[in-house]
């Protein structure tokens, strides 16, 4: 087997194409801003970007003109306010953006169907709501055993999914702890998978604790080593969420000029994540996680 380790620039150049359906998952935790920024830098266009919570990273990609369509279930700035680029697009039509909207369970179900190789997924959900009116892809099926009418959503099979993990080996066997979100389903649903990690470890480290592996290398196309690649999102055990930046985004994103200035300075204006970090030397002192280790377990037989 050969190593899949490449730079972020190489991974995005090889695996993210104009017109693709792109998923950068992670529920608050492990959102790979480094990948989003590289997609913006490489000026990808006409993307369908899908995530449960678009978060700041998709707000930035919308503002940068990467997205034709957004598929989502909760579009706010968690704990801080609005995603104003998203809101301008929906409320004022600038830039033009198509939306397709579900609830969290609906998005999880779409990825579960995609990951299981099924055309749709069923749920007991949406009765009485206007969500199926707003989104006609939310439909129903009658259970052949009980006769109950259940809600359905179609499988989501992204062209490419980016998963950030605490660690992986060079083949992409990736281990995650802390909040797991919908990353496993998103990765298995996807045609191509980019794994981005805080640390590259030897295969023996993975094999010593196989229960912690979320993504197996066999479905991974590229491995990128990008410490602090999630900032201002976080990586459990490595660095905390930069809540101050999430709060600051309210003002930055409210003003289109300020938002473009942000992109110029922090995305187009740096060549990679290393330079982004070098320009913020205070981050490590402010956000590095305190240690709290757990005891290992006995895998013997």
């Amino acid at each position, binding site marked *: 087997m050969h190593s899949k380790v490449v730079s972020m620039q190489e991974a995005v150049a090889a695996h993210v194409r104009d017109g693709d359906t792109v998923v950068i998952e992670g529920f608050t935790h492990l959102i790979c801003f480094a990948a989003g920024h590289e997609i913006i830098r490489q000026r990808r266009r006409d993307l369908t970007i899908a995530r449960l919570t678009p978060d700041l990273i998709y707000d930035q990609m919308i503002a940068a003109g990467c997205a034709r369509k957004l598929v989502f279930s909760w579009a706010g700035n968690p704990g801080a306010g609005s995603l104003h680029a998203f809101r301008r697009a929906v409320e004022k039509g600038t830039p033009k953006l198509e939306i397709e909207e579900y609830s*969290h369970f609906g998005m999880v179900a779409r990825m579960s169907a995609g990951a299981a190789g099924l055309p749709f997924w069923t749920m*007991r*959900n*949406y009765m009485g*709501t206007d969500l199926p009116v707003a989104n006609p892809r939310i439909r129903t099926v009658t259970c052949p055993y009980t006769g109950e009418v259940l809600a359905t959503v179609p499988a989501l099979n992204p062209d490419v999914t980016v998963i950030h993990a605490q660690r992986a080996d060079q083949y992409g066997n990736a281990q995650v702890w802390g909040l797991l979100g919908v990353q496993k389903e998103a990765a298995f649903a996807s045609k191509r998978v980019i794994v981005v990690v805080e640390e590259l470890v030897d295969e023996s480290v993975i094999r010593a604790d196989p229960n912690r592996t979320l993504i197996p290398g066999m479905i991974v196309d590229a491995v990128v080593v990008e410490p602090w690649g999630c900032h201002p999102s976080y990586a459990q055990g490595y660095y905390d969420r930069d809540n101050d930046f999430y709060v600051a985004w309210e003002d930055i994103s409210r003003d289109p000029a300020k938002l473009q200035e942000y992109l110029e300075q922090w995305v187009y204006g740096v060549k990679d994540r290393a330079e982004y970090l070098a320009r913020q030397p205070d981050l490590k002192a402010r956000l590095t996680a305190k240690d709290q280790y757990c005891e290992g377990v006995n895998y013997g037989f």
Partner: protein
Amino acid sequence: MASEYTPSEMMAAVAARELGNGEVVFVGIGLPNLACNLARALQAPDLVLIYESGAVGAVPERLPVSIGDPSLVTGSLMICSMADVFQLFLQNGKIEVGFLGGAQVDRYGNINTTVIGGYEKPKVRLPGSGGAAEIAVHAQRVLIISRLNPRAFPAELDFLTSPGQRCKGKTRQELGMPGAGPVKVITDKGILESDPESGEMVLTALYPGVTLEDVKANVGWPLQSRAELGAVAPPTGEELRLLREVLDPRKLFLG
């Protein structure tokens, strides 16, 4: 008269009193989170806090700013995937109490968190459902927390995101919803409860110093009220101390 506590403090205290020891609660950020942690510090030390992010039995050491805060992980009983949260816990009926809020609440406790104005070109685009629609369907009972004003309690919703007691004339039973739906609306002036017959939210209790007219003026439909309105005790010294000194000392959510 200057009050010795804020409306937010009162709402958090009232919501906390609703929770019994050992209950399993689906927690939201903001006042619901404060209410759950207040209850945990008082009458319900064994309250099980579940967050949609996958933290089960969370014991947050700091006030979580977001629903995916790392402090929800450290020390939790279990971390699971979101597929597990929604299927094994919520859809499978394991959640006893769900908290919801929203930009608009109607007389049946239906909630809009999607748009103000039309869906296609809204005046204000709100975040959308998140997990709210399915919590409203499945939680064994739902508590709504919302400040009263005529815009927040309109006669008609602009969009129905999360179902209440009646949706377009149909009952929850007719629609096949397993949970009891919103049983109480905890506001900044009093408490509304769902009437078992009509499904309407009716005023059942007033906070100290609030009049019936004051509540009615802030509701967009002809609000019914119980013949005898209950009284609600103001926050105790201990409730206020915990809220102010321990749970939200920086006043992130307690305005």
